[in-house]
């Protein structure tokens, strides 16, 4: 009898404690290699050398590849169409599920110059709001999307993976500045999705509409919203309202005027 009560008590305590730990303790890193393995024999995610609390890892061979899905880089010529498809499938998916997203950083600069990805770029940056990332985390985390793309025989599968640390707001969580990834499971290329959040410290100091990212970028609501409707790689994309000023602030005047520019 006592054994029974003790066992029940233990179970009850476990059940109570589990949900609390679900988000933090048990999910330490990204999805395990064996869970998402496509065709590789060995994990090259670079997980081994990273601190335990870091969720997303940069592959052992290049920071802009996911080592769980690729063993090596692909050539620049080959990479560009892959990135284009990555962007197109991402934007189409987000439009389909009704999640608002907009482009930023190097990707926005590519949009500025020719409404395309810069050919030498190997990563893509998009941003979402806190509402959207919560929505993605709650309903679309670890979902796979299969696209039949022109020029591919079997199509390609993309994975939406959300970093559970998205609930941590502070900039001191430097290991998890990227809140989600849209991953091409064939090549290991991915889009970095980061969340733009209200900056409560700045707002308390009187900066109206202050926003921030975990990667320490700071914005104002009026610089990003309302979003503009434009085109990127031929499909609809949202652009921050003050795109010129944002680009100038991040990359300098010359990035918008010189055709040969390097930073």
């Amino acid at each position: 009898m006592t054994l029974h009560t003790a066992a029940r008590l233990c179970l009850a305590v476990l059940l109570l404690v589990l949900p609390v730990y679900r988000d933090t303790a048990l999910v330490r890193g990204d999805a395990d290699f064996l869970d998402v393995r496509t065709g590789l024999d060995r994990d090259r995610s670079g997980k081994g050398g990273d601190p335990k609390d870091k969720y997303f890892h940069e592959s052992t061979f290049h920071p802009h590849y996911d080592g769980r899905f690729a063993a090596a880089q692909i050539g620049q010529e080959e990479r560009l169409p892959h990135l284009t498809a990555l962007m197109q499938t991402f934007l189409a998916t987000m439009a389909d599920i009704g999640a608002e997203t907009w482009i930023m950083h190097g990707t926005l600069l590519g949009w500025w110059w020719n409404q395309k990805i810069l050919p030498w770029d190997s990563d893509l940056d998009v941003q979402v709001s806190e509402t959207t990332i919560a929505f993605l985390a709650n309903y679309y985390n670890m979902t796979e999307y299969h696209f039949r793309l022109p020029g591919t025989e079997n199509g390609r599968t993309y994975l939406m993976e959300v970093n559970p640390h998205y609930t941590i707001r502070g900039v001191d969580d430097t290991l998890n500045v990227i809140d989600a990834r849209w991953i091409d499971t064939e090549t290991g290329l991915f889009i970095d999705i980061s969340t733009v959040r209200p900056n409560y410290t700045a707002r308390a100091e009187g900066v109206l509409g202050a926003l921030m990212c975990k990667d320490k970028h700071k914005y104002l609501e009026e610089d990003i919203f309302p979003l503009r409707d434009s085109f990127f790689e031929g499909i609809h994309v949202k652009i921050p309202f003050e795109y010129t000023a944002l680009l100038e602030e991040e990359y300098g005047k010359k990035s918008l005027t010189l055709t040969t520019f390097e930073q």
Partner: protein
Amino acid sequence: MPDIHLPSFRSSQRLRKPLIEYCTNEWRNGAAYDPPFGSRFDEDRFVDRLEIFVDRALAVIRAPKFRRLALLLVVLTLTSTVLWIKVMAPFLKEERAAWSSLNKHAESAGDGLFGANVRPQFSDMVYMQTLDRSLVPGSLNEKGESSTKKRLVFVGDVHGCREELERLLKKVKFDPKTDHLVATGDIVNKGPDTPGVVDLLRGYKASCVRGNHEDRLLLVADAIKSNSLESKKNSGHDSEGTVKADDEERKLAQLLNAEQLAWLKSCPVMLRVGQLKAFTGEVVVVHAGLVPGLALENQDPSSVMNMRVLDLSTHLPSKEHEREGSVPWYKLWNKYQQLIPAQQRLAQLKNRGKSRPGEGQITVIYGHDAKKGLRLQKFSKGLDTGCVSGGKLTALVVDDAGKQKVVQVGCKDSRKRPPVQVDVDNILRKGITGPPLGGDAD
């Protein structure tokens, strides 16, 4: 009387010379004498001369004529120095910077200058429109009939001030049959009656351009309509620290009906009016400004609606009022327009008579910059005179005979202020508020 024996030398002829003549200072020539200061004698002379000089100089300086002259000289030097430092040098520097900034066009075919990119395309935005020929005074339509319109009336930023707009139209004796109204953008927001202004303009079939306030308003209206999980719609309850301006636009977007929004959406970013007798070259209406040396087709729409200054080295526009290394856009614009005829002639010479239809001169009519106020220059006409903040509402009336006239009406300050500030203002102006004390009440 005793006989006084005068010294014998007195009578002598030799002694008629003054005694001093007999001092020979023979001792100086003696070998034993070594003058302690070799130049003492010269120095004495020098000091004497100096003294004389100082005396004379003092005398001259004391003379009233000279004093006046000196004063004049000092004042002149000072003024010219100040003039040079404060006015001429900056002016020259500015001019030189502006010209060299424009010369870049000729030298490097535009590399390193704003506008080398593919022009950003936005859906739901009319980029350019040409004003119907039948609305342009003095122009002929395809059949060769002259336009029925006699005047064009350009109005600066109205910002929802319907009463002032009505008064202004009355003052210019606006007649919809013979006159056509063109608003230079920022028709909406801030003021008391935006829907009224929009309806008034629609009623007169007026033309308009998209200003930064229309731009924001229309995008906000789109965002409200869209059914995507939009970041701000769902966080409506969380109002702390949200931007005030955006809230206003939200309210306004819901206040305006679909037709009013559709009319606002139909306003292009730039409106080509064509040739008018009153102005040199083609006339284009935009809200904020244009980047010189860049074809109308390649202007960045957001900059056209927002710019105030241009960076001298890159021509990068900015919405800021002042900025280091930047000048107001219209300054560069006017200089550039003056260069165009020469450039065309040069191009013609290079191409041996094969005249290419190059860019022509353009006169820009704009608003946006209330801080600078009314700015009429040869190739740019700034019409925003800050009506909504108690300034004036300005109309530029251009007729088919080539005459232009500026008409203004005063406005009342209709800025919305937070109530606390109003209280403070009242207290500052009237002293302590509250029930007036017996005897002081009037």
